[in-house]
């Protein structure tokens, strides 16, 4: 017997959580795009999506975030540090890869200097992961040693029932336990079996890849140029990546006032590393793509003991020129040793 959340109790569940002061965010399909957004009822949710086009990263590390509001006057500058709203949030229906992404980024944002913006949001949020019932050609969680039912990054884990009537529900963190307490009357004990976890084929051998990347001799390999030749240098793979975290800080305003903002930036962009002198350490698209792969599968690992990829496959799924991590790592795997 396991605890289940029946589908028909989901509305009550949302209501209970809202009553407890939470906003509930879930996958929604709005204006021709799927993302996480606030919902009021179960029917607002698009839980059947394999994966939302946008990641939940958006809600922890938003594409643009006000940091400081300033007012310029003649002899003084008034500045006011802005903070994210102190709002409790539940992310319902997060896929394991997205949830893992948050866990992957935690050490980076907490490394020595704590990024308050990230952690305030992290602390306010409860992640309710739903294990995948389906996968598509681009999913590659298993290749990065995760799985369609990984609990990494989750507070509460849901597994869809084979009957389709609900989910097995399980708290996997203290925060999760506390959350379930708020809705315990709505949960039932049941012997319903969970639906089988989809088979996601391993597309590359991450160990082999890491080994190849770690060899300094390969840094200047022709491989990088060949593999990235068709890269057009947009930032869509980085911006839709659940773990990419690069950003820029910009002031925006008029003569009298403005806001200093933290905006997404991308290592794909030529300007990312361009010095004002005009010197650019990474002046070719191949060097930028190399940086992205190296950062994810070598540097990050070395620093934080984890690869900066959760296998969601978005990079390939939406790439305008059908590139992506999978292709590159597959190619590395298949390189003659």
């Amino acid at each position: 017997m396991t605890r289940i959340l029946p589908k028909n109790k989901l509305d009550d569940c949302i209501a209970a959580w809202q009553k407890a002061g939470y906003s509930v965010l879930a996958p929604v399909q709005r204006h021709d795009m799927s993302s996480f957004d606030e919902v009021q009822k179960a029917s607002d949710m698009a839980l059947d999506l394999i994966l939302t086009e946008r990641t939940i990263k958006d809600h922890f590390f938003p594409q643009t975030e006000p940091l400081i509001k300033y007012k310029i006057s003649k002899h003084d500058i008034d500045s006011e540090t802005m903070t994210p709203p102190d709002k409790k949030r539940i992310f319902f229906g997060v896929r394991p890869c997205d949830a893992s992404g948050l866990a992957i980024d935690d050490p980076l944002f907490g490394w020595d200097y704590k990024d308050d913006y990230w952690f305030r949001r992290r602390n306010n949020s409860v992640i309710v992961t739903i294990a995948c019932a389906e996968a598509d050609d681009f999913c590659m969680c298993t290749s990065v040693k995760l799985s369609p039912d990984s609990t990494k990054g989750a507070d509460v884990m849901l597994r869809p029932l084979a009957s389709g009537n609900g989910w097995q529900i399980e708290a996997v963190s203290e925060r999760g336990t506390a959350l379930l307490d708020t809705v315990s009357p709505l949960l039932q004990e049941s012997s319903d079996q969970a639906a089988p976890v989809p088979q996601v084929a391993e597309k590359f051998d991450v160990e082999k890849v890491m080994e190849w990347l770690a060899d300094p001799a390969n840094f200047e390999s022709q491989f990088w140029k060949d593999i990235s030749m068709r890269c057009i240098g947009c930032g869509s793979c980085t911006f839709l990546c659940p773990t990419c975290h690069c950003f820029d800080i910009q002031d925006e305003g008029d003569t009298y006032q403005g806001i200093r903002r933290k905006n997404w930036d991308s290592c794909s962009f030529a300007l990312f590393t361009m010095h004002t002198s005009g010197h650019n350490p990474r002046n070719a698209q191949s060097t930028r793509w190399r940086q992205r792969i190296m950062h994810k599968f070598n540097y990050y690992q070395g620093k934080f003991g984890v690869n900066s990829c959760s296998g969601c496959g978005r990079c390939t799924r939406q790439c305008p020129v059908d590139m992506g991590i999978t292709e590159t790592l597959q190619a590395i795997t298949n390189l003659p040793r």
Partner: protein
Amino acid sequence: MSESFEPKIVAFVCTYCTYAGADLAGTSRLKYAPNVRIVRLPCTGRISPMFILKALQKGADSVLVSGCHPGDCHFAAGNYHARRRWTVFRALLAFTGIPEERIRFSWVSAAEGAKFADLINEITEDTKKLGPFTQYQELQKVIETQSSY
């Protein structure tokens, strides 16, 4: 909209015709609404669509772009180039829902002080009827809060 709404109108004008026309309105002591702020450019050819967007961002309720009549451009053809740009830009704004009535274009020569005064009065009146351009101004306000869900 309230009676006391005083629209903000930003005018981008060429120095040889419309600016001089506005000077003539001044020397002729013609009275017109005080809602307009004039930005002087050498020629309508210098007036970039970006100016209009920034004026809107700064809270303009209407924007006026004005220069020499066709054939009269001090720079021979700046206004012809400008006219093409405006045609295209105007269509673009209209298609994205920025009302055409808020972006006005005119030819005012150095001799048309009265036309300038009338034009400003007319735009002021029309804009009062349209009310503040809240749609666009909201976008500016939202900047502070967006992303903070």
